[in-house]
């Protein structure tokens, strides 16, 4: 794919020297500016947070086995709130961008590093500070506002550690902004010669779009949390209805970030799926331009749909109409992607390696997640399902069925590149299957529960809902096992896995041209790109 330019080889291309073994000791990690090492630091941190959040989910699913609940309401409320906060802000938002994209974007575009390596490291430290603040809130007794921090409950009424948690999220937001800023500048300014915009891998496109949302949306979250914190400290403020403030304004500002934020969470996953489907079908991505364009369309449209979280707050009917319509608009580019992935397999040469299994899972579950989103974009059915388990099921289909599947698929796809080792094929396929089954068992019953009216965030519920809740909790335990198995065989592979070689999947893409694991500066010489992405062979057929 790439021919090498003349230049100065900076590190001898000996197989053993790579970014992992070039230096040793904790200092070489904590003070590194190598995007690949920072990606590894992030990977460790977000995995930890994932299991913290997951553990809370296990606990509250246990609580929901009995209609009257097993723990106290106080405990339950703190569990689901911390689950949401940890999973959204400390796992989903940074999951793919800060790990896989951090590792891969410079390599994919033929650069030595991100544009601002020190800012990249800074973003990790900021993330850690945010995580510590939030964990402090957990240790002191937790926060019970839900991840949405709605005023005036959070500003005036809650007796939990709202300030610590809000400052934790506030802080983590800056880490997200810096990551997005780094990606935008890197994609604009650091591309290797010949790497035109139309040759960018779709993973880069989707992360570029994500970067735009991070940079434009996150500061609004920061300011709204800050205003909330001041209001909590001063016991009066702009969301306080007692002095004529409007608590709905909090929701407007909050969702101005938090709706685009769900696209921060899903867009990178879509990028991963484009890479995987193309590689394991040995085929160019069908309609490259449309897939790339749809990422940008999602980024833009994501900023004008926030009002669909407020259909039943009493906002004007016409506001509701506009937001409903725009929410349907944003469904179109998502649909384009799903159709194009499917079409990519047409006349391909499809293999069923583990990453591809996750991609299948993603396409199926994201389709269901996206379609059930239409129920919530439709005004009348939103009224019937708002605030119920239907919403919970919908966003878990997108966020867990979609994003976590994509994250695991991406980890399995690029693990040989990141570590130079292969993992157990049999175990990984088994785990993918378990995750898929466990996921559906957990969340499908929640659609039914939701339409029957079971509200979210209830620590106790009417007895007729028990059967489906028991099913859901059973599924959660299966899902938990499905997440632990990869931890074991992936860690095992670090020491015992067979050597992977530079390109175990026979994939196209610059990252597969360099050694596994790559050297500190990724390439011995700056590559010159002469071809499209996904060049698995010459074009043979044109439809339509």
């Amino acid at each position, binding site marked *: 794919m790439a021919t090498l*330019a*003349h*230049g100065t080889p900076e590190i001898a291309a000996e197989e053993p020297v790579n970014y992992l073994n070039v230096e040793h000791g904790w200092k070489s990690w904590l003070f590194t500016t190598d995007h690949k090492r920072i990606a590894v630091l992030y990977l460790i941190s977000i995995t930890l947070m994932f299991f913290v959040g997951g553990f809370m989910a296990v606990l509250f699913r246990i609580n929901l086995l009995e209609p009257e609940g097993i723990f106290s309401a106080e405990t339950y409320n703190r569990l689901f709130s911390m689950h949401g906060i940890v999973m959204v802000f400390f796992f989903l938002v940074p999951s793919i961008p800060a790990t896989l994209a951090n590792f891969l974007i*410079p390599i994919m575009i033929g*650069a*030595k*590093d*991100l*544009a*601002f*390596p020190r*800012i990249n490291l800074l973003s990790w430290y900021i993330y850690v500070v945010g995580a510590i603040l939030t964990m402090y809130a957990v240790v002191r007794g937790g926060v019970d506002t839900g991840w949405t921090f709605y005023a005036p409950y959070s500003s005036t009424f809650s007796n939990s550690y709202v300030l610590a948690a809000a400052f934790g999220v506030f802080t983590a937001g800056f880490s997200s*902004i810096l990551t997005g*800023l*780094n990606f*935008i*500048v*890197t994609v*604009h*300014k*650091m*591309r*290797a*010669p010949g790497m035109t915009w139309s040759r960018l891998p779709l993973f880069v496109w989707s992360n570029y779009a994500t970067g735009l949302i991070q*940079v*434009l*949306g*996150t*500061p*609004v979250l*920061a*300011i*709204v949390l*800050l*205003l909330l914190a*001041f*209001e909590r*400290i*001063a*016991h*009066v*403020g*702009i969301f306080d209805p*007692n*002095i*004529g*403030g*409007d608590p709905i*304004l909090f929701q407007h*500002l909050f969702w*101005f970030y938090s709706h685009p934020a769900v696209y921060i969470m899903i867009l990178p996953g879509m990028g991963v799926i484009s890479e995987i489907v193309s590689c394991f079908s040995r085929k160019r991505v069908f309609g490259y331009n449309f897939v790339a364009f749809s990422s940008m369309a999602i980024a833009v449209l994501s900023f004008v749909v926030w009002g669909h979280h407020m259909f039943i707050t009493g906002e004007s009917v016409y506001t509701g109409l506009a937001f409903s319509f725009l929410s349907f608009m944003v469904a179109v580019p998502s649909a384009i992607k799903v159709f194009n992935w499917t079409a990519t397999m047409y006349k391909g040469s499809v293999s069923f390696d583990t990453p591809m299994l996750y991609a299948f899972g993603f396409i199926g579950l994201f389709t269901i997640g996206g379609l059930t989103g239409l129920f919530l974009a439709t005004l009348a059915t939103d009224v019937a399902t708002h605030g119920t388990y239907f919403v919970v099921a919908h966003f878990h289909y997108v966020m867990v069925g979609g994003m976590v599947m994509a994250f695991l698929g991406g980890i399995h796809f690029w693990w040989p590149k990141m570590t130079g080792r292969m993992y157990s094929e049999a175990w990984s396929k088994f785990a993918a299957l378990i995750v898929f089954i466990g996921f559906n068992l957990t969340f499908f019953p929640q659609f039914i529960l939701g339409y029957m009216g079971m509200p979210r965030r209830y620590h106790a519920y009417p007895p007729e809902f028990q059967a489906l809740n028991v099913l859901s909790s059973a599924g959660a335990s299966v899902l938990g096992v499905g997440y632990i198995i990869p931890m074991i065989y992936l860690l095992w592979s670090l020491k015992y896995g067979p050597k992977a070689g530079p390109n175990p999947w026979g994939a196209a893409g610059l990252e597969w041209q360099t050694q596994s694991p790559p050297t500190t*500066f990724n390439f011995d010489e*700056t590559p*010159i790109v002469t071809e499209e992405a996904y060049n698995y062979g010459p074009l043979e057929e044109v439809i339509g």
Partner: protein
Amino acid sequence: MAETVIPVGQEPTAEETHLRHHFATPAQQMDAATLGMWTFLITEVLFFGGMFAAYAIYRGMYMDAFASTSEFMNVVLGGTNTAVLICSSLTMALGVRAAQLSNRKQLQLFLVLTMIFGTIFLVIKGFEYHAKWVEHLVPGFNFHYPIPQFERHAQILFFLYFCMTGMHALHMIVGLGLLSYLLIQATRKVFSATYYAPVEMIGLYWHFVDIVWIFLFPLLYLIGHRK
């Protein structure tokens, strides 16, 4: 991004341009820094934008109460501060020019002047905050508004006043820290015509913070004087 390798010899050395290892050319490095700074400033616009949005909404709802607060804002001090900040922007711009011309003495002079103006601004702001405390205009802590019919809604404005000017002042303090860093670096003879990116970037930041004030001043001090 077209050319990758520059012929070594004709151009300043990597040491002179402070070229970091992962950039191919100083021009690429400068481009990246500029784009990065502008992107960061867009983030800042959105950050303040949240508060401006809240201001706009409540001003629409409670116009009279908001207008009545102008009586309690010190327009003279606010106006002085506006002038001080505009001067500081001028000295900052002159500082960037001095760096581009490799004029170290001038650069130091203008950086010091900018910092003096910045400090004057903060001191004046401090006096204003103190006056608000004395006049019982700090919502939540000691608020007693002399015009009873506006007591409730005026609190919203004063809450916004403290949030907006407070965040602005915090940005000024950060700016002063950055300027001190520039001054130290300038004294160490780091900047020259071949390398002045930090001066220019921090200059952009400083101008941004000034511009925020240019919006804050009329919105917070002059609403009532509109009539």
